[in-house]
């Protein structure tokens, strides 16, 4: 087996590409779960973002419009989720699943209606990669980190921004308080429902951007079900990252890297007649993530889950 082909610069570049859409959604989910709302609609928000970004970029012939449309679609579904979970206080698990089914049906339907019979293949102009002068010439690190497309840097900045927001601002303190002890936060004059609304809009926007990164940033095409379960993986990564945006980002990167690694091992290991079953490689990202999570949980012992996660807050009613 050719190990240099597996552990090359391109492995890390591929790992980052695979990780970024999921990372964005996962950090968004982390934010709204810290505010006490379980958003299972994440996959639907990513999918809607992916589709809207494609339509936007196609009709306006501009990647920027596409990205904006993707974020907008995510925010819109975030608002639907907030309306159901925060305003109406209905069961969050059901709301989330309804949002996913709704987005899957709507995108498949609209894609067929909008592009159904056109013989030409709808493809949008891809975003070109940005080469950061100076930094990109650093051997090894340069090609991995400083030759990505612009959405990669936006995504990275956003995920770091969420950490700053949560831990270094007054608003972040409110978010965390609302997720841990909404009654206490309420007594301290924090508007619980308003914070949760905002958290869900941010989460939806980030998931929508995740979908847009996939479509506008990487593939320049849309396909029904293109997010392929990334939203669900993202929800798992929040638990993996113990509700800390930086650890969640780390988890997404680990998952993406292992995924890139297994694809490379498949490519190098004897092809179609490989003696090792390919399913083993496919399971690798899940196994590694699970192993790290178990180790981390055993080591820290403390439950990191926000105490009020999934519990609607009603003023004046003891929880």
């Amino acid at each position: 087996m050719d190990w240099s082909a597996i552990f090359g610069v391109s492995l890390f570049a591929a790992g980052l590409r695979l990780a970024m859409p999921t990372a964005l959604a996962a950090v968004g989910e982390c934010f709204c779960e810290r505010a006490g709302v379980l958003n299972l609609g994440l996959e639907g928000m990513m999918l809607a973002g992916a589709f809207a970004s494609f339509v936007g970029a196609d009709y306006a012939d501009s990647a920027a419009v596409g990205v904006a449309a993707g974020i907008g679609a995510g925010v819109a579904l975030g608002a639907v989720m907030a309306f159901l979970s925060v305003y109406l206080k209905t069961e969050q698990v059901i709301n989330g699943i309804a949002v996913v089914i709704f987005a899957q049906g709507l995108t498949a339907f609209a894609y067929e209606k909008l592009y159904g019979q056109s013989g030409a293949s709808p493809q949008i102009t891809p975003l070109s990669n940005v080469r950061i002068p100076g930094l990109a010439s650093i051997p090894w690190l340069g090609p991995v980190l400083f030759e990505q497309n612009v959405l990669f840097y936006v995504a990275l900045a956003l995920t770091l921004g969420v950490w700053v927001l949560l831990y270094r601002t007054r608003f972040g303190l409110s978010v965390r308080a609302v997720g841990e002890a909404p009654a206490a936060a309420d007594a301290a004059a924090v508007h619980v429902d308003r914070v949760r609304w905002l958290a869900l809009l941010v989460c939806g926007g980030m998931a929508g951007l995740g979908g847009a990164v996939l479509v506008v940033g990487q593939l320049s095409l849309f396909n029904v079900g293109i997010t392929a379960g990334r939203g669900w993986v993202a929800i798992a990564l929040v638990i993996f990252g113990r509700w800390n945006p930086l650890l969640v980002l780390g988890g997404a990167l680990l998952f993406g890297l292992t995924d890139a690694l297994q694809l490379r091992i498949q490519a190098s290991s004897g092809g179609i007649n490989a003696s090792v079953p390919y399913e083993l490689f496919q399971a690798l990202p899940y196994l590694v993530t699970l192993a790290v999570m178990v180790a981390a949980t055993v080591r820290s012992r403390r439950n990191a889950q926000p105490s009020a996660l999934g519990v609607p807050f009603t003023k004046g009613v003891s929880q």
Partner: protein
Amino acid sequence: MNGQSTQDREDTVKHSALRKISLALVALVVAAAASAALAKPASHTDSAAVQKKVKVGLLLPCAINDHTWCQAAYSAAVRLQKEGAIDLKYTSNAPFDTAAVSQLMAQYAQRGYQLVIGHSAWQDAAFSAAGRFPKTAFAYAGGGKVANNVATYEEPIYQVAYLAGILAGGITKTGVVGGLAGQDIPLCHAELQAFIRGAKTVRSNVRGLSAYIGDWSDVAKAKEAALAQADSKADVFIACGDGPSQGMIQALKERKLSGFGYVGNQNSLAPKNMVGSLVYKLYPLFKLMVQDTAQGKFIPAKDYDVGLKSFQLVLNSKYSQAKVPAKVMAQMKSAQKRIATGELKVPYIAK
């Protein structure tokens, strides 16, 4: 509704239960409407159907504009409809699971559709629905078991993959060819094996790579898998599956490599990179089934197989044909003829 919600806010405890129930209902309605949209995004019926037309129900697991699997079946059915042979109703983006598919098939049968075609490896679903409607003709794709009123139609992609392999053997500079599939199902395995086998007839030391994505719609991961194979020197590619083929094409464009389209004519998706496409021609297969249904000869059901008439290698005229040596092209054409006459048998290596 507005006045009521103002009241609710004043008397939250009393009304919250009622509000919860009503809104859970709203959520359910939204979900139901969405799943209805998912199950039946588009349906067309010709209201002025002539009696003699065969009523055909077509179930597709993907979108009618996917440039590959579902589009191939849909366009074949539409052609029969335009010819006046059938009265078509279809369901696109149908669910994958056996229970839901057999339910959809049964619904078509119940509404009087004479021939219900499930365009996927839906053997179990077809058998389950066929047991309840013994007079309706059912068919599923890809070969397998056949019973009284359940037929199947073959997808001899491996034969065409062999022809593509011959061209690949002539095109490859590195001597490495790549292959991507959603999962290691017999159909894909046989396709990839035949591709490598074909390439070896031109260049005996060709090495074949293969990767399984684990998903049929994950275009991004398929693209990364193709890039990984390109890093391992592969320069001519083949794919099996909707997502894998789309991802492969994106990788080909990025790295300026060559490849073959899957099931639909995907040549226009990357005119500079596609040598050709392995195109599934479902028209002759559907036509045979429709004729048999019209003449009451569908039962006992058969395994419909028309060989290379149902699968063709459609070359891309915009691809630089200079990259394919004339000798290799001639070798491919001769193999094509010998497969058609039955003189050459491409082995079906399912595992």
